[in-house]
């Protein structure tokens, strides 16, 4: 009865909600990495989309060149791409810390373009196939639940909450939060802050790559990061730069809103997040959960 009223069927509604949750999971994971990096380093990591894409390609390459399946890729690829992030930070980004933050933005933007260009040159612009590691699903009555979708939502939720917990509730996280406020003082207490910054950047990049591995069964394509990163930036702006829980809640929330928009007003589904971003910027420029800097 309810579903006749709202003009759709439970399968469509819950199916889209699930897709919305999946998109939201990727939004959350990627904006989380961006928020952590921006919070500590004041650098907007425009390379993030390319690093997400490298995660997916890493999974593809491990499978096709070395025969390493998905579950091995989940562990190895974030480490490898995270290491590449450490190199980028040490060699390039760290040289710009004394300059206007704009230069960090331009640098990461350029590095992202280079990486995407290289992959496009090597692999072409169309996607490569990657098998779904847990095929099939189960019928819940009101909807069909594919196993892999359940895995993506569940795993990313756990990952986001674990990251939040580590930053907000542990001593290691307190170093990060303190260095975000006063890096000079934290260093004067004896902590090697430049090393902390390097490792944090590597962690944020590893998180992006992990999202890329999760995305591989859906898409392995040199432009997949560029397509997604614009929306992720909108999510970060809405949630508030530097707020960990803000990124998670906003990411999942906006994914669901986008999914619902697809059911009820599909024409707007591409733009609804940007409309929300414009409204939030007018009413709460620091984002829903952000604090003024």
């Amino acid at each position, binding site marked *: 009865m309810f579903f006749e009223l709202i003009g759709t069927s439970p399968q469509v509604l819950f199916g889209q909600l699930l897709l919305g949750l999946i998109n939201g999971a990727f939004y959350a994971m990627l904006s989380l990495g961006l928020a952590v990096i921006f919070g500590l380093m004041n650098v907007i990591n425009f390379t993030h989309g390319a690093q997400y894409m490298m995660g997916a390609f890493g999974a593809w390459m491990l499978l096709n060149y070395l025969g390493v399946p998905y579950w091995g890729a989940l562990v190895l690829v974030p480490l490898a791409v995270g290491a590449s992030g450490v190199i980028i930070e040490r060699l390039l980004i760290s040289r710009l810390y004394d300059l206007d933050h704009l230069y960090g933005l331009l640098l990461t933007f350029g590095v992202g373009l280079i990486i995407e260009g290289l992959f496009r040159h090597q692999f072409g612009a169309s996607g490569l196939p990657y098998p779904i590691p847990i095929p099939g699903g189960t019928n819940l009555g009101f909807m069909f639940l594919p196993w892999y979708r359940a895995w993506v939502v569940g795993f990313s939720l756990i990952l986001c909450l674990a990251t939040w917990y580590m930053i907000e509730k542990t001593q290691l996280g*307190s170093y990060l939060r303190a260095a975000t406020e006063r890096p000079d003082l934290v260093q004067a*207490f004896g902590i090697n802050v430049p090393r902390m910054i390097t490792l944090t950047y590597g962690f944020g990049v590893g998180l992006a790559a992990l999202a890329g591995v999760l995305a591989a069964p859906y898409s392995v394509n040199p432009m997949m990061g560029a397509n997604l990163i614009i929306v992720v930036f909108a999510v970060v702006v809405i949630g508030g730069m530097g707020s960990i829980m803000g990124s998670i809640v906003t990411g999942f929330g906006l994914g669901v809103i986008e999914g619902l928009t697809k059911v009820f007003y599909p024409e707007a589904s591409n733009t609804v997040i940007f409309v929300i971003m414009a409204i939030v910027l007018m009413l709460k420029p620091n984002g829903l959960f952000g604090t003024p800097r």
Partner: protein
Amino acid sequence: MPTIDMDLAVRGLHGWYGESHVLHGMSFDVKAGEVVTLLGRNGAGKTTTMRAIMGMLANREGSICYGDRELIAATSNRIARLGIAYCPEERGIFSSLSVRENLLLPPKVKAGGLSIEEICRIFPNLAERLESQGSKLSGGEQQMLAIARILRTGAKFLLLDEPTEGLAPVIVRQIGDTIRALREQGFTILLVEQNLRFAQSVADRHYVVEHGQVIDMISGIELASQREKLRAYLGV
């Protein structure tokens, strides 16, 4: 009881904030176990000197010798690891951390630091507020916390920048008691102070700083008789 460490010898210390030449050859000593103050008008270069010693002043030249180690080019985290700790004028309490997290943040750099239990005994008002957010403390509580957290590290050479500024007399007395107790335990303390009476009550010697240079040294015993001269220096 903690072992006494090394003397600090500053010679010809020059310092710049960008183009601005702020320190013009600071030279002074702080012997192990002493409490020494830097007195002077606002802008004389006292805080800048502290930051230079702590390695937090990017542009500096000259000599800062701690024991037999030359620190002029050292990074601040290495200087901290030698057992020197800094309590800045603005206190630097991390607002997004709880009191407990603030206390636990500075890592132990030497053995012999106070435990959390001992800190709670010396600073009972901090003990009550362990889980409060750092930003919710009063000025006096923040000052106590700023001092308490460096006491946990085992550092034996403390740089205290205006610890009594803006605090109520009863808190000022508490801080004076704390500094005197630390001196008994063999700590070495370099203090920046504007409050002459407080400086006299805790310190062995006083250096007068003007325009980034030491222009006079007054021993603790002489301070009372030199009041007039000091007032002239400080323009009070």
